[in-house]
């Protein structure tokens, strides 16, 4: 039985030297088990911070408030030891740049066997066999040879598959992928898509994919969550959100893509105004009401929500 991940009133701030920078602001969201949810947003929207907070992988300066329930356990309240048991075993992670994700001075085989030996206390030979099976499943013809080699001897595509295996080796029920397509060219972007398709078939359906690549998310995910400056502005079924968006920001994002003619979202017209809606200063549909009225994430229909006056 796979659990949902429910996040309630999550606020994350970073206590930097002089001031406190807020990255995530009062987020409420439920990631349904058995579904791939895409979290979209631009740099500074807080999507990566939100995703990484689930596994408590944020730097020391981060202070998190609110709760993140995984089944009946609040992940934010877990102590280091019990969180360590969850990481890799119940929730796996796939990181951003594959070529730097593996330890360059330790063989690939040993790094893949580590979690097995640690979590399931299996013998080395058994761990070796499991790793070989996974490698074969991800298209490595000679698993034994690969296990002796190092990450810098692998191509970008191979490293992608290796970090996928690394996240899945203990058969976690959930998987979080942080910006899998960042900085990749067309061919590697396509190969990472195939990797996710492979995961979907053989491993787990419950995934959170954090990305700024709208079309990759549209193709891969069933559910989409759009974030802007630490707030969720829209949630909905993937195809619907990315073809007929509701929130002005999502509309602006889609219009800015090359396919749609790259019309830019206007810059902060009047940044000075403190307004309830964070997108107020860049929104064409902005009205006096937006400044005053506090807008909640309103539910339009069972799996669509939006935070905008127009739908209140």
């Amino acid at each position, binding site marked *: 039985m796979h659990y949902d991940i429910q996040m309630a009133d999550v606020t994350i701030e970073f206590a930097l030297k002089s001031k406190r920078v807020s990255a995530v602001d009062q987020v409420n969201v439920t990631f349904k088990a058995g579904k791939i949810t895409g979290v979209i947003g*631009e*740099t500074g929207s807080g999507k990566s911070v939100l995703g990484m907070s689930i596994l408590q992988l944020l730097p020391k300066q981060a202070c998190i408030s609110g709760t993140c329930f995984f089944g009946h356990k609040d992940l934010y309240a877990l102590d280091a030891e019990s969180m360590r048991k969850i990481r890799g075993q119940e929730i796996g992670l796939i990181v951003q740049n594959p070529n730097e994700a593996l330890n360059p001075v330790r063989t690939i085989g040993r790094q893949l066997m580590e979690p097995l030996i640690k979590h399931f206390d299996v013998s080395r030979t058994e761990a070796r066999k499991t790793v070989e099976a996974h490698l074969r499943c991800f298209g490595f013809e000679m698993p034994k040879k690969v296990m002796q080699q190092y990450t810098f001897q692998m191509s970008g595509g191979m490293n992608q598959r290796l970090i996928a295996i690394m996240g899945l080796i203990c058969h976690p029920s959930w998987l979080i992928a942080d910006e899998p397509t960042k*900085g990749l*060219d*067309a*061919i590697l*972007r*396509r190969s990472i*898509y195939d990797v996710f398709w492979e995961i979907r078939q053989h491993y787990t359906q419950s995934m959170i994919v954090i990305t*700024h690549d*709208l*079309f*990759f998310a*549209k*193709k891969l995910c069933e559910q989409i969550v759009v974030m802007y400056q630490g707030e969720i502005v829209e949630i909905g079924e993937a195809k619907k959100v990315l073809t007929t968006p509701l929130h002005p920001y999502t509309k*602006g*994002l889609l*219009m*800015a*893509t*090359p*396919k749609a*003619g*790259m*019309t*830019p*979202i206007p*810059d902060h017209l009047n940044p000075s105004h403190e307004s309830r809606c964070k997108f107020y200063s860049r929104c064409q549909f902005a009205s006096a009401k937006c400044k005053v009225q506090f807008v909640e994430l309103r539910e339009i229909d069972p799996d669509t929500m939006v935070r905008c006056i127009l739908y209140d």
Partner: protein
Amino acid sequence: MIELKHVTKIFKQGLGQTQIALDNVSFDIPQGTIMGIAGNSGCGKSTLARVMMGLIPPTSGSVLLDGKAVSSYSRKERSQSIQMIFQHPAQSFDPKMMFEHSLMEALKVSQRIDRDKFNAAIREMLSQVDLSETLLHRYPHEVSGGEAQRMAIARALLLKPKIMVMDEGTSMLDVSVQAKLFDVLTTAQKRTGMTMILISHDLEVISKTCQTLAVIYCGSVVEQGTTEQLLTRPKTAYVKKLVEEFAFFDI
């Protein structure tokens, strides 16, 4: 007008190993047109950009700028005809200098405008690239990627170049910031009629902004022609595959 004639560039890597970065590349770009150069990472795009700029000499072949070889130009003459925008915005400026100082220095060195008009020119250019003047007193690491890149464009445009080369200028930026950047660039291009060369691995960006296109694979031009022709009727297998990769995510 910029022409490349059989340009080859071979890098010596010590112990006799050589790496062919560019292999017999030839094309010419008429003045005022926007040309795209597409290719995946490691195909020699950046080397091509630096050879066109005259920053690196080609091993063989020649680069002609309005009929004269780029290498025969002095650095100052070259700066008045061709300018470049780099991939990492914050790194295109000296980390120890405020933007205002960097812009002033560019004007002082290139002597395109006489001294008393510097401030006016800078203020006017900032409004064109839609940046507020408060940014002038900031350091490169204190601004966002998009703002730093627009400042780089401002610096380049201040020198009134005939040709602007963009080496992966937007690959580090978000979609909306990229849209803003191209909006600024295309308006500037229409106003000055300069030639623009966009180098990128993102075929979609190039297809929306460039009239002609050349696809590079392992240092050699695989196919070349108008954007429309290459995208709808690609001849070579590699370009077909590239177009198919991008189309894959469209449906």
